[in-house]
């Protein structure tokens, strides 16, 4: 494994760590993995998960870049006149442009947790160089069953009824809103629009791995919810979904992190990637 700090982007304002496998291990036919910021956390990732992922990928021959988008971590914002969303998308494009120009890498897998997953989705939709995305606690929408899973255990609790009476507004939606604000996450796009975008991605053979945790119970709370949320989506075998009910949102416990990282690395190594 070889890691080095790099600077790129407008005015070299973006800072990241390029991790490359030893030459004997290298598998240049595989896409490079680009890791995005989880909310405001810097590129190391919660509990160093991006560093650990980069090193495991390098051991399996896969290159990766973990970097800070402008205004996060060590990177400065050079596009302050632009909206936050367009800055983020431009910075991620800069990262891929850097890897393409300097390392002749033309296909990418984006990895993002929370807001990072939302950004990975947005860039994947816009940039055909993205051949895969790993979305950790990505978009979620309530279904009939998720309401049942959420409310049924509460029916026998007087306190829950009291709360309901006091706040006619849906407490689940309020909790989800608080979660979103805590993680500085933008509202999810309309479900049908997101479904159309996912369909477009799988139609162009983009590989997608969704992993949800119990940490986002307020918007995703049972295995199989993905299929119910996006009923009618024709995945062509390009989507895999996991639900780790016992894990928290940032994978604070080592066993949860280990499970997620192993799954992600195996997925990266086993998918049939389109050569570019």
């Amino acid at each position: 494994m070889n890691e080095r700090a790099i600077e790129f982007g407008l005015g070299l304002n973006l800072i990241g760590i390029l991790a490359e496998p030893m030459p004997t291990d290298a598998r240049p036919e595989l896409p490079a993995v680009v890791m995005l910021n989880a909310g405001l956390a810097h590129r190391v990732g919660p509990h160093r998960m991006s560093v650990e992922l980069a090193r495991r990928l390098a051991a399996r021959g896969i290159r990766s870049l973990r970097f800070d988008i402008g205004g996060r971590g060590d990177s400065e914002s050079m596009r302050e006149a632009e909206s936050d969303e367009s800055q983020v998308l431009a910075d991620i494009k800069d990262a891929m442009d850097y890897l393409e120009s300097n390392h002749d890498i033309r296909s990418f897998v984006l990895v993002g947790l929370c807001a990072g997953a939302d950004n990975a989705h947005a860039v994947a939709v816009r940039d055909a160089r993205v051949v895969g995305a790993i979305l950790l606690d990505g978009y979620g929408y309530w279904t009939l069953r998720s309401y049942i899973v959420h409310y049924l255990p509460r029916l026998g609790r007087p306190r829950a009824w009291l709360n309901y009476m006091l706040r006619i507004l849906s407490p689940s939606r309020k909790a989800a809103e608080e979660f979103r604000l805590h993680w500085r996450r933008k509202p999810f796009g309309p479900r049908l629009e997101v479904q159309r975008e996912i369909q477009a991605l799988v139609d162009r053979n983009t590989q997608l791995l969704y992993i949800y945790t119990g940490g986002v119970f307020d918007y995703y709370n049972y295995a199989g919810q993905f299929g119910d949320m996006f009923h009618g989506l024709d995945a062509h075998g390009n989507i895999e979904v996991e639900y780790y009910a016992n894990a928290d949102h940032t994978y604070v416990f080592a066993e949860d992190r280990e499970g997620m990282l192993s799954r992600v690395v195996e997925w990266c190594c086993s998918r049939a990637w389109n050569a570019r």
Partner: protein
Amino acid sequence: MTPFHFGPAQAQLFGVYTPPRASVAREEGILLCAPIGLEYMRTHYAVKLLAMQLAASGFHVLRFDYHGTGDSFGEVGAGQFGIWADDVVLAMRELVALSGARSLTIVGLRMGAVLAIEALVSHGLKIHGLVLWEPVVNGPEYLAMLEGIQGKLADQREIPPRQTNDLLGATYPADLRARIEGVDLAGQMRLLDAQGAALVVSEDKPEFDSLLKGMRYRWPDAMYRSMADPIEWGTVKAAFDARMTGPIVRAVAEAAESLT
């Protein structure tokens, strides 16, 4: 701002050097020693802001990740406390080599203050100034606080987590915990070779009073600044707050500048 790796080839440390603003450049360097574990993530942005403010005031500034943390090589393991203290020394030398600084001041935040003092005492090094920023003064209470947060997270699980050396996603081997339990900053003050020192805290606490007494025994004019704006370290919500900022960053920069 220059990101780079330094140190031995197989155990490189990641650092970010921020050069001084040219118009006010001094021949003085400031090394920033970050916290460990979850507090490292929470304070990363504040440490970066501090580096930029100090560089704007003319200092050469280096911040870095200890071995097995952040973007540095390796994993946390046995003997880590001593390795981290050695990392502080390595970073001091790197800053001098990079900048040509004639004198060094160290700013240590939380466990970073503990490690900086350990480095200076164990290696018998002389520095210009030392700023202790919300330092961990009571090791057993610090560990108990982390264990308390972890316990609350474990209680939220349907299946209890396996027992490991981890606390809040970072590894704390038994010998590291033992070293943290034995923290005695006030007692170490008299062993330090520095011209001045400052203590900057978010709020007054008895533990800081004891430390300040130790500091003023060594430096009668040691600066003390309390922001009267408590930082919550011991709750689940606060522990996962991604950024620590606020006026305390400016106060630490002013304290460091006042020592030069």
